[in-house]
């Protein structure tokens, strides 16, 4: 298809250069790619400190996700067990190989590791970041957190360190690049799946999770 490629690009190039003549297009494009200009960010993407955590929790609540705070990592299994019991879910959890979960004493919960399967009552992932601006969780795919766990779990549990909450897209992408992350997929998740395609009435649990629960890990531990 290289002939089609060349013809399309030639048409685009001649239209672009005729309508927008500029001597240094290549330089402009290269410099913009290297250093994207930042426009005025909305105020709601600028929270700090404890207000940021509060905003994040409120935004998540507004999109029908639930949230519980876990003071340190060693308490995660107990918190998970509590949630599984309360939701009448089997005492089992599917995770990836995230180092955070290694060496945890899961107690009565039966852990299994791997990608999502057709029936997946409860899955657990770790989010790299949270965005207070929208109540969004950002997950990076890979063996640590398989992407299918995010979409096949009937109930999806996500652990997020409080210290990983960013105010909005601006500081989030800066941190993302700083961490040198380059996964195959970046999954921004804001609430459980939903659809209004039947009767224009919004209902939770379309094809992805019916419920989303976040464990917010305090103290920067873990």
């Amino acid at each position, binding site marked *: 298809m290289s002939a*089609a490629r060349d013809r399309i690009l030639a048409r685009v190039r001649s239209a672009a250069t005729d309508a927008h003549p500029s001597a240094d297009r290549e330089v402009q494009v290269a410099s913009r790619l290297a250093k994207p200009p930042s426009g005025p960010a909305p105020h709601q993407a600028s929270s700090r400190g404890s207000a940021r955590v509060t905003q994040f929790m409120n*935004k998540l609540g507004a999109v029908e996700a639930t949230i519980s705070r876990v003071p340190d990592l060693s308490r995660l299994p107990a918190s998970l067990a509590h949630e599984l019991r309360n939701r009448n879910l089997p005492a089992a959890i599917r995770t990836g190989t995230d180092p955070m979960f290694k060496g945890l004493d899961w107690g009565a919960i039966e852990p299994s590791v791997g990608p999502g399967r057709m029936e997946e009552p409860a899955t657990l992932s770790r989010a790299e970041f949270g965005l207070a601006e929208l109540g969004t969780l950002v997950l990076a795919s890979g063996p640590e957190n398989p992407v*299918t766990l995010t979409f096949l779990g009937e109930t999806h549990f996500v652990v997020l360190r409080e210290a990983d909450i960013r105010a909005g897209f601006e500081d989030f992408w800066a941190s993302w690049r700083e961490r040198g992350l380059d996964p195959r997929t970046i999954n921004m998740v804001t609430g459980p799946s939903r659809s209004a395609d039947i009767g224009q009435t919004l209902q939770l649990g379309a094809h992805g999770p019916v419920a989303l629960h976040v464990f917010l890990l305090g103290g920067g531990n873990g």
Partner: protein
Amino acid sequence: MSLHEPTTPAFKANARRALDDENLQLALRGGRNGFVSKRAAARDKLPEFDDLRDQARDIKNHVLANLDLYLEEYEKKVVESGGHVHWAETAEDARNIVLDICRKADAKIVNKGKTMISEECGINDFLADNGIKPVETDLGEYIIQLRGEVPSHIIAPAIHVTVDQVRADFRKAHTHLPEDRDLTELISLQREARGVLREKYFEAEVGITGANMLIAETGHSVIVTNEGNGDLSQSLPRVHIVMASLEKIVPTLDDASTILRVLARSATGQETAVYNTCSKGPRRAEDPDGPEEYHVILLDNGRSNMLGTEFEEMLRCIRCGACMNHCPVYQSVGGHAYGWVYPGPMGAVLTPSLIGVEQGGQLPNASTFCGRCAEVCPMRIPLPKMMRSWRAREFEKRLTPSAVRQGLGLWAWFAKRPWVYRRATAVGAAALRAMSGSKGRIASLPLAGGWTGQRDFPAPQGGTFMAQWKAGKR
């Protein structure tokens, strides 16, 4: 290809039928105000919304002025991540590329996330004709696939279907389920579709999705969804095909975020969609899931010819649907009346560009020129201005019906002779006033049956504008 043949030239007849369709009118009434009020609430909650619209517009203008360079950069990044880029000049090229990939993958079932580009290319019919079963996985798309229909809205494809119709369709299609099951509640319908489609995700060899954006900086394709079906369709099958048109490019992840900030708010009134997913390339050696092959089909299909013309700004469109949600014509007749893939004001501008003014020239006439579409467009696309340009072209090409041409000619004769025009309007206004009697309304008017068939014609009140001006009422 029957579903795909445009019926755009029959817009008037289509609209007439739509107005008389009780089920359709019931469904349209149900959806009418939801989108409008939710968007307004989302806008009110974000003081910087209009600044963000300016930013989004500027990003796309910059991209369009440098589209060749960004396309090359994007292609380079996709290839670096192990993906394949295919260039399609026409819908037919795109169909053949899809079929070729499916055949190489020995595909029997192809799962589809919601993609308007696939609708534009008529992929479903084409695959079915070639012995491959396409399965729509977006709930709305799934419903209309069961009904043998095409989408009537770009983000709510089944907005024209009533709940009772969905119930009947599910009973007819899901015969493997108990006949006496309870489908009273809406949620039971949604759960049923969820169960049926969950199995399909694991059966398909190929998954096709669209892309809301393509990021030049990284080579990511971005999908924006609420249901999670797009993500399952692109994560589980062995092969993932992304179908996207050329202008979907944005330079960087940061630019994508700006677009995301206006997209969901304009579309459904959500601050963000539930899932904004960026993906690139096939699964890596260490990955436990994801497709083994990743293909992107870049579709031109007439778009490169819009660059540098009065219709270039249409290429900023991010397919949020706000223009149709706010359009009085769309609200009255729904999407199918427009007769092709893209309905509403954006469709009225885009369709003649893609399938020719001879086929699509009727659509720019489907406007009251109230201007609400341009008012709400997150990308600030001057839709009414472009519809006017199409009307002018239609007139120049002598495609306008002779009665309209003669009427316009007659009006032009008067308009060029102001004195005659003023006398004629004064006489006309007085005559209409006399016809209306004391009611101020006229129930039936010669030569204006198209108007009075649906509603009364308001009689002019007071003198003409020029008479009032002269009298000093300024």
